[in-house]
């Protein structure tokens, strides 16, 4: 099927690639169907595009490329909701807030996107306060590799 995207114009996607975010994203509770789009294999970035709404497209980042020691637990409720059985099929992304320059841009480490590629579902989770990661973590420090 064809969809209109915010960053890449009209593209062809396969229906089986649609990811369901049962609860939407925070503040965007009605947006439940997204696709992951790659942009440049050399960059730890991708796009999360709503299937239903061209305006709803996020630049997302592979957070471990920017913060090597980023780590968190996914609570039991979220694991159940996302039907997580094997960790290796679970992707973590952070939403990027793009500014005028790349140096000023930030990623959201406090509320990462967890995507279960096996079950084609995802959720934006909020990490617990006590080990709190920032809502706006500067992107300019590219620490790890993209892979």
């Amino acid at each position: 099927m064809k969809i209109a995207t915010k960053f890449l114009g009209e593209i062809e996607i396969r229906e089986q690639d649609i990811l369901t975010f049962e609860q939407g994203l925070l503040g965007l509770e009605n947006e439940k169907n997204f696709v992951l789009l790659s942009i440049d294999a050399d960059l730890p970035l991708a796009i999360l595009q709503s299937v239903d709404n061209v305006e709803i497209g996020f630049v997302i980042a592979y957070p471990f490329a920017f913060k090597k020691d980023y780590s968190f637990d996914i609570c039991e409720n979220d694991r159940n909701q996302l039907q997580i059985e094997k960790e290796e099929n679970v992707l973590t992304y952070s939403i990027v807030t793009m500014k005028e320059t790349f140096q000023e841009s930030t990623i959201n480490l406090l509320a990462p996107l967890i995507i279960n590629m096996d079950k084609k579902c995802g959720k934006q989770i909020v990490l617990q306060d006590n080990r709190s990661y920032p809502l706006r973590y500067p992107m300019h420090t590219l620490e790890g590799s993209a892979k």
Partner: protein
Amino acid sequence: MLVLSRKKDESIMIGDQIEIKILAVEGEQIKIGIVAPKTVKVHRSEVFEAIQAQNKEALSASSSFLEQLRKR
């Protein structure tokens, strides 16, 4: 909304597993203790509001961002 008055060291039970206790009242600030099972997430509501606002701000990224990456 259910409204209850509590004094210092008094508490409220929500269901049979969640206890909210008033630990201290200092002027405008109230210290609250929360005992809840691990599966219950407890957050300050500002955290949620801030994340919602950040998501919306992230959406306002212009589509020229791809060019920006190439310039980097």
